[in-house]
């Protein structure tokens, strides 16, 4: 039995700092995806929402908040929270329902309204909550962790500030003509190297911001797509939502200590490596099959880590890829043709879905102004807090 489902429609609300109710972005994106698919909302049998934790109870039940706004239709509903991987988790639930034969048409939506500045934990005094503790005890903001990884690249692999600037310059150029990107402006190396130091060695223009935005995909069974007259849709061929394996020996958000490897040897693959490996295994594809990738560039230096995690090169060799232009549009394997988080900023529950929207449009040949030539296979990947991460492989 095929494990593929069809992506019949994709839609987004442009990223920005609009300051409106997240439900509005979700509805806008959902309607765009439905129109793209030519499917009526009342024919959707299942809606899955990505949860936002910054918008009160309505955000905890994002799936039903958006369903109510679209108009109660009796569709079944679920809301998924998996930190930065929430959108992919929602996709995974919808895909599983379709593959189980429980429905043919599912809508997946994620939307967020974010506050200005550092993402911060919820209020109160919660000494049992690692996310609260890391701020209270250490002032360990998200960029603190990104800086740890960046410094290691610098000292272990000779990564330089100029390499990271090259990532930012590339992504800024990629996003120039993307109508959904928040930042559509070229940046120079000079501007990047002169931007304020936030968490050494990372400067402001190396770190992605937080944004408002919404993204949606309309997933269907292959049979439903065929009945609609679409015999060769873009397909979801893998969704990886693996947890880490013990002992996880890389320090990750929001922990203040790693697992101990005193009694058990560390796994062969790091957590980030394993997220991609599970997706490749499920799709029966490998890095050599990719035509493009959308990776989670929370920092410019982290984009280089991802090159290695998804197998574009060996550990310590990512700098060569950016220096040689391999990951630029027109290069061997373009990365973040959308402009990535550098141009979008992060709208947590929408971001993993936005990555899938971009790859869908790329495989359909509809990514105007940023199209990867002859794109047949694309991968998305991200990592979030608390052992969450996701990777989706789309094929044509």
């Amino acid at each position: 039995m095929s494990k593929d489902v069809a992506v019949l429609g994709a839609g987004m609300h442009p990223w920005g700092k609009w300051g409106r109710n997240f439900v509005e972005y979700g509805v806008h994106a959902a309607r765009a995806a439905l129109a793209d698919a030519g499917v009526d909302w009342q024919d959707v049998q299942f809606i899955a929402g990505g949860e936002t934790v910054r918008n009160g109870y309505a955000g905890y039940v994002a799936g039903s908040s958006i369903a109510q706004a679209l108009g109660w239709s009796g569709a079944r509903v679920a809301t998924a929270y998996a930190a930065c991987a929430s959108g992919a988790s929602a996709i995974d639930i919808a895909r599983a329902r379709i593959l189980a034969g429980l429905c043919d048409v599912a809508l997946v939506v994620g939307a967020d309204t974010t506050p200005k500045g550092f993402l911060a934990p919820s209020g109160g005094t919660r000494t049992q909550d690692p996310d609260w503790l890391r701020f209270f005890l250490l002032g360990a903001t998200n960029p603190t962790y990104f800086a740890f990884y960046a410094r290691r690249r610098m000292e272990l692999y000779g990564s330089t500030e100029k390499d990271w600037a090259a990532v930012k310059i590339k992504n800024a150029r990629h996003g120039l003509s993307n109508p959904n990107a928040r930042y559509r402006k070229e940046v120079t190396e000079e501007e990047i190297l002169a931007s304020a130091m936030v968490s050494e060695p990372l400067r402001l223009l190396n770190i992605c911001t937080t944004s408002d935005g919404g993204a949606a995909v309309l997933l269907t069974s292959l049979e439903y797509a065929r009945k609609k007259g679409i015999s060769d849709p873009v397909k979801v061929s893998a969704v990886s939502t693996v947890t880490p394996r013990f002992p996880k020996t890389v320090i990750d958000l929001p922990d203040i200590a790693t697992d101990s490897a005193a009694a058990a040897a560390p796994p062969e693959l790091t957590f980030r490596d394993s997220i991609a490996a599970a997706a490749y295994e499920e799709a029966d594809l490998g890095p050599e099959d990719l035509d493009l990738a959308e990776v989670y560039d929370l920092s410019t230096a982290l984009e280089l880590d991802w090159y290695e995690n998804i197998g574009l090169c060996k550990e310590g060799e990512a700098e060569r890829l950016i220096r040689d232009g391999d990951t630029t549009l027109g290069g061997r394997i373009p990365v973040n043709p959308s402009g990535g988080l550098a141009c979008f900023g992060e709208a947590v529950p929408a971001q993993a879905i936005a990555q899938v929207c971009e790859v869908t449009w790329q495989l359909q040949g509809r990514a105007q102004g940023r199209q990867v030539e002859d794109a047949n296979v694309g991968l998305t990947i991200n990592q979030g807090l608390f052992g969450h991460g996701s990777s989706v492989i789309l094929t044509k």
Partner: protein
Amino acid sequence: MPAPAVEGFFTTDPEPALLGTRCSDCGTYHFPAETFFCRNPACSGTTLEQVTLSSRGTVWSWTMNRYAAPPPFPQTEAFEPYGVAAVELAEERMIVLGMLTGDFETLKIGDEVELLVEPHVDGETLIWKWKPVA
């Protein structure tokens, strides 16, 4: 003398130490302390003894934060940049974070650091910190 910022995470002896637990069945260390379960998936141990962790380690990575973290990080009128390190403990085979103190601006990966207990940024409570070994 101010009280620890959080109970049960470290001692305030003249030679302070982080307080963790060690599984009596498999030997896995936990920090912060786990007291009801061992996180090793191959172990169902429920006896976790309190232990002090190594007070010396080596730098896995570190950063200097030049912007104030939001609450609950203590907010002060005059913000001072602060360092945070990820430190590898050899015996426990784990990495533990901590704020930095002393002359740390030229730290390199692999440099040795030791544990100290000092006032938190607002001076109201005590916190553990890592300091380069001279």
